[in-house]
């Protein structure tokens, strides 16, 4: 299992692995929004949590189809399925690798990029906390979507259509918790909801994704 994690991480930093792609995309989205909305600091600060959350979500989506598709194409998914690694564990590890390569850098960068949106002091902290709680769910739900579409040629678009609606609850509660925290209001309810979604998807979706993979490998 650790070997699989190390291999996925190593692949992601080699040429064409896509490390930093999501981060660069996130930065560009954050920079583009002030161009579109205008430079008023109050408006930008007010919409910042929502924009940062949507940006992080789209950046996460960008690399989802790589989770299983590349392994499927070169045949290593077949070999992995016959190896002494439970499919559920392999799915969870691959989602973890995706989070380490995509979700974690986004979480660490969001407070920084918040500055580009005139975000004020407690907001940075809450962006970090909500993304830290929410992005694992994005990777896990995404891995499930990737498992469903793994055998399809150009399944990336279908994957987006499948996964984006499933991201809605995480987005609503995550952005709400960040916005409330920034305004100095109580936000423990949406925070707990985000944490609950993450815990639930990490607990259940590896089984669903493994079942989907087994059917797709037949």
């Amino acid at each position, binding site marked *: 299992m*650790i*070997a*699989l994690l190390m*291999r996925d991480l*190593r*692949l992601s930093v*080699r*040429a*064409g*692995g896509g490390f930093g792609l999501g981060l660069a995309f996130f930065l560009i989205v954050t920079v583009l929004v002030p161009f579109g909305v205008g430079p008023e600091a109050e408006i930008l600060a007010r919409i910042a949590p929502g924009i940062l959350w949507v940006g992080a979500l789209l950046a996460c989506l960008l690399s989802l189809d790589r989770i299983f598709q590349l*392994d499927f194409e*070169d*045949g*290593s*998914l*077949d*070999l*992995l*399925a*016959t*190896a*002494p*690694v439970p499919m559920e564990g392999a799915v969870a590890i691959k989602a973890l690798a995706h989070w380490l390569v995509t979700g974690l850098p986004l979480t660490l960068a969001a407070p920084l990029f918040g500055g580009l949106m005139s975000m004020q002091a407690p907001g940075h902290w809450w962006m970090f906390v909500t993304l830290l709680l929410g992005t694992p769910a994005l990777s896990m739900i995404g891995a499930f979507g990737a498992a469903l579409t793994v055998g399809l040629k150009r399944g990336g678009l279908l994957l987006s259509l499948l996964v984006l609606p499933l991201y809605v609850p995480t987005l609503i509660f995550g952005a709400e918790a960040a916005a409330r925290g920034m305004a100095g209001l109580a936000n423990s309810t949406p925070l707990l909801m985000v944490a609950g979604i993450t815990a639930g998807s990490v607990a259940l979706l590896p089984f669903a994704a493994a079942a989907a993979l087994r*059917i797709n*490998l*037949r």
Partner: protein
Amino acid sequence: MELRVEGLTVARGGVPVLEGLGFSLKAGEVLVLRGPNGSGKTTLLRTLAGLQPPQAGEISLPPETIAYGAHADGLKAQLTVTENLMFWARVYGTGDIDAALSRMNLVSLRDRPAANLSAGQKRRLGLARLLVTGRPIWLLDEPTVSLDTASVGLFADCVRAHVADGGAALIATHIDLGLEAEILDVTPFRADPDAARVQGAFDEAFL
């Protein structure tokens, strides 16, 4: 340790390709599968490897004994030969890759990225993976594709050593490997594709 198959029916895309197949493979034996293209050799091997369920019949084999070598080698182009092989060695919990590298004549290529290997060299690396699995029963699908004569000899030596060591191998191939092997021609077991289409297709559409 014995792989035993009785009354096996395997299907591809819901259409049965082989039916009523029965054979057994004991330690120290090699069984070569023959049959024209599309006769179901790959489907049979995938079913035995556990990648798809059989439509009917019994497969009995001890758990954790199968190493499956597919058409695709499952190599990562960005990783070196050592890294590729080391990954599988660690997945199977064996860890020693030096013997496999030297037996497949890959030592001089060990730091080369897999992207820069020739087709035959990739194949040799894919076959070296079998040596690091430590599994007794090898299921091989066209293992000699794109290998030159010398490499086919190397591979045949590996199979001989594996079998002498108490292993067994089931090999689907079109060429003569020069092994002492039983030959199983699957042609007599080919299923009539039209007979079961009506009942099989419905389930598959919803799975």
